[in-house]
């Protein structure tokens, strides 16, 4: 992992002190509500439906055990509303049907950050100080600025990797942090980066998507896409460069952002993202960026050209960790025991198949701890669970964990000898659901139980589907599928990119859900990144689980065989189109009307 220097540490402390000062000026009335809002947002502090929400940055998803323990402490000691706040919140949500409103927990997001839902603003500055003590912060996790950079959860360990994206992600983190020119862009700005052939970071859906690759001469560079984004106008990024030499990536991004800062729309919030500028201006925007890039390099002297020595300095932080648990030779006896247990224990066997992936080091494996299980919302982690993850990372993964785009946690450095004891420990912690990439491994935003923007709740829908699909044989028969749920068109639950997408909409003050089919995040299994297609008018909350059931039954009925294997859900949607699915879903509508 990147090791903070004294500079990094004092910088984050200064930022925490600055926030405390701003908070105090706001509390004393020196800073108006309107003037304070953008400042608190750029430190990750929202005011949500019932209480403030803090979003903590997890740069490119990497967390140490020490940081996890601090997140656990914050959840335990601070993620607790005042009694009156909680009473009002519970009352309001009970009217909608929510019975459980957890406190003292953290939530992993699709952009690999962590959110807390209940910390009172009066304790905000103390929490920022605690975060700073473990090299963490909420800098630019909200606001119209360059947000935390997300990355491949398997960066540096994936067998299909061309180059490790983390050193570049770190250099970009530094370059974007409190960039003086780009703190007040027309709208938020998100960068994702991957160095693997498989895109696990949904790069084409980002304002800037970066994919490391090598050209014919073997040189390293980036494929650069600009102007992807979800929201009410889903757009896939446009390729601006098929190959940009790595040294120039900051110069190029500066050009991309400067032209956007000058010409992006500021008159309409919904048309302010860079995707709208790229769509509206097309080649003119691209020409503008290329000209600005040329000026930056030729006239300004390429001030952000990355020297090799700097790349090497940062890269050294990301070397293979040396620890007894990582360096141990393969223990054949441990493997034999593990195999014997797998033969007798279907859950372990399933877990090995679903949650354990190859590593570029043959002795090691990448293990996913699943945060998709009954009684807790997707991506939610209690204080106790955060401590347990810290323990598991410490014992089995060189003290390092990664937050994934799909709201799980990956242990990137697990020795093959340790798979059985890890599974046993993960099971005790309730983090061993063998469901990675299956239906219940869904993405969901916090929705109308917490978020002020939501039109409908997401968590009860996720819960109903999770309850309905608990049989692992059934889930495995359905196979790999991306189910994504957003509580509103802002698309934090990435419904556009789900093979099945569910979008909460508000009709006459009631919760309804629009269903889309065939979306893709751009992974190999899902095909080229694209938005799903709506299958008709929206459904009531009660209908949604039935609709999912109908869609899956339709798939099982019509799926074809591809060579040795059966078509996946999304392959069937691509081949057969959405019509057979629409028909199946419409039958639910009629049926529910009759029984109502």
């Amino acid at each position: 992992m990147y090791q903070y220097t004294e500079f990094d540490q004092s910088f984050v402390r200064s930022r925490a002190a600055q926030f405390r000062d701003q908070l105090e000026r706001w509390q004393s009335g020196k800073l108006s509500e309107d003037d304070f809002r953008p400042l608190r947002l750029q430190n990750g502090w929202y005011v949500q439906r019932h209480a403030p929400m803090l979003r903590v940055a997890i740069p490119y998803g990497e967390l140490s055990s020490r940081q996890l323990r601090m997140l656990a402490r914050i959840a335990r000691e601070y993620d607790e509303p005042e009694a009156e706040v909680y009473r009002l919140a519970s009352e309001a949500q009970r009217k909608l049907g929510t019975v459980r409103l957890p406190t003292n927990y953290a939530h992993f997001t699709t952009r690999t950050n962590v959110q807390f839902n209940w910390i009172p603003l009066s304790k905000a500055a103390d929490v920022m100080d605690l975060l700073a003590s473990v090299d963490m912060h909420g800098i630019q996790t909200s606001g119209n600025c360059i947000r935390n950079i997300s990355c491949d959860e398997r960066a540096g360990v994936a067998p299909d990797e061309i180059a490790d994206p983390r050193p570049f992600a770190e250099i970009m983190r530094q370059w974007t942090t409190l960039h003086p020119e780009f703190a007040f862009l027309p709208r938020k700005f998100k960068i994702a980066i991957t160095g693997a052939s498989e895109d696990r970071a949904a790069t084409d859906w980002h304002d800037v998507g970066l994919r490391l690759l090598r050209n014919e001469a073997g040189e390293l560079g980036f494929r650069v896409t600009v102007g992807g984004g979800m929201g009410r106008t889903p757009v896939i990024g446009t390729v601006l460069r098929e190959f940009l030499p790595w040294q120039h990536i900051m110069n190029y991004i500066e050009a991309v952002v400067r032209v956007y800062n000058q010409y992006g729309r500021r008159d309409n919030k919904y048309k302010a993202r860079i995707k709208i500028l790229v769509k509206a201006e097309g080649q003119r925007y691209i020409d503008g960026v290329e000209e600005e890039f040329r000026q930056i390099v030729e006239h300004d002297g390429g001030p952000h050209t990355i020297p090799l020595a700097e790349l090497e300095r940062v890269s050294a932080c990301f070397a293979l960790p040396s620890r007894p648990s990582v360096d141990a030779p393969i223990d054949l006896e441990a493997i034999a025991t593990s195999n014997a247990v797998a033969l007798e224990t279907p859950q372990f066997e399933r877990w090995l198949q679903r949650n354990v992936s190859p590593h570029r080091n043959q002795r090691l494996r990448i293990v996913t701890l699943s945060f998709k299980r009954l009684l807790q919302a997707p991506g939610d982690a209690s204080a106790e669970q955060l401590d347990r993850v810290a323990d598991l990372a410490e014992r089995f993964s060189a003290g390092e964990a990664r937050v994934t785009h799909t709201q799980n946690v990956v242990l990137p450095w697990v020795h093959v000898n340790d798979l059985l004891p890890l599974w046993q420990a993960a099971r005790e912690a309730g983090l061993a659901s063998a469901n990675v990439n299956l239906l219940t491994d869904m993405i969901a935003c916090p929705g109308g139980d917490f978020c002020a923007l939501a039109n409908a709740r997401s968590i009860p829908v996720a819960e109903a589907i999770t309850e309905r699909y608990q049989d692992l044989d059934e889930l495995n028969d359905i196979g790999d599928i991306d189910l994504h749920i957003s509580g509103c068109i802002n698309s934090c639950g990435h419904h556009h990119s789900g093979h099945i997408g569910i979008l909460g909409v508000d009709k006459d003050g009631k919760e309804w859900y629009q269903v889309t089919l065939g979306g893709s995040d751009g992974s190999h299994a899902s095909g080229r990144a694209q938005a799903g297609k709506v299958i008709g008018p929206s459904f009531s909350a009660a209908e949604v689980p039935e609709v999912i059931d109908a869609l899956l039954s339709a798939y099982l009925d019509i799926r074809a065989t591809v060579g040795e294997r059966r078509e996946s859900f999304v392959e069937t949607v691509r081949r057969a189109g959405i019509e057979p699915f629409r028909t199946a879903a419409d039958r639910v509508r009629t049926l529910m009307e009759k029984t109502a």
Partner: protein
Amino acid sequence: MNGSTRIRLITLAEHASDASNASRQVVSLANDADPAEQKELIATAARVELHFPNFTDGRAYSQAYLLRRRLGFKGDLRATGDVLVDQLIQMERTGFSSAVLKDGIDPADAQRQLDRFPAFYQGDVIHDAPFVRSDVGSNDE
């Protein structure tokens, strides 16, 4: 500009008196203007004023960068409009040399914000030295 020059904080009254006493040309750029299109005017100006209609509108930061780095403007570059203390350091770093504070702003609050960070990560208009890490310590634990 040299690194030791700090942005000059001036009151609305001082700004008004500057305006009436201006001996050389003052150019006010709208915040959707491209500075390159007025480079002849800017070349002879004593002062260029860039306007923040709202402090969350960040276009003037890019205009300032372009004025300093692209057009080589050496005169006074002034921030007007919705100028708040928390953005002064950004203004200084993008090349503003003076800023007109809104009425009622405590100059002590303003100064404190300017001195808060000992240094920044990225190069800017004042410090042309990104990625030089000799001054920031090593990555050893």
